[in-house]
């Protein structure tokens, strides 16, 4: 299981890009943290999610 924004999901074995493709996140508006570090956008396709990983998808909204 992978913890995503506090929720346990059965996505171990997928890449970050594969997981994001199953969601409604707008890729231009997000940053992805995995186990305490930011995953560079260029590495979404090669970063595998492992059992026990914790990720947070920060999705920005406009205004400032």
């Amino acid at each position: 299981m992978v913890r995503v924004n506090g929720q346990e999901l059965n996505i171990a074995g997928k890449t970050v890009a594969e997981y994001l493709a199953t969601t409604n996140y707008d890729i231009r508006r997000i940053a992805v943290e995995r186990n305490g570090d930011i995953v560079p956008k260029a590495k979404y396709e090669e970063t595998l999610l492992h059992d026990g990983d914790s990720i947070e998808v920060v999705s920005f909204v406009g205004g400032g």
Partner: protein
Amino acid sequence: MIPTKEEWICALEARHGKELQKELSAATVAVCGLGGLGSNIAVLLARIGIGKLILVDFDRVDISNLHRQQYKANQIGKYKTEALAENLLEIAPYIRLEAHTECITHENAVTLLQNADIICEAFDSAESKAMLTNIVLDELPSKYLVAASGMAGIGSANSIKSRKITNRFYIAGDGVSEVSGDLGLVASRVAICAAHQAHTVLRILAKQFEV
């Protein structure tokens, strides 16, 4: 009569303590975007006695900014970098300012921000916020980033919070209140979010890393 630099530092030390003020005076903080968030963050950091601010914005002061941003009616039409620099120097005459009137892009971000200890993301658009966040955390890994997301509308002041995402990445806001047709930005709620960001900067410099 403007006080001398010695009187200025002395007054800050009396309120913040000598040790903390030394850290604040030695710090360089970049403020990216000088709108409702950035202009308020910069004013707070100037008052706190941050040694140097790097100010970045390409835009000019417009009448539509005055309801929430730290500019004056007689500054309409000026570049925000120039107008804010004037205002900051009136507040804190010994602060050092480096102003860049340009748009932050993937190409220039590292050059513009490499001398900052802490970077405040204070943009308007969600895409720009995400772009800067990814660039700073990926390409400037020794910096701290203090970002903001979700402060539009007149929702509760208490829903604006600071969160720590990684050891280098903090974010303030309610996370969801986006600017839309009927949900604008109001001075008070934007200033609360800006104050969260400025306070996180202060706490990082005081080595208080938890939110």
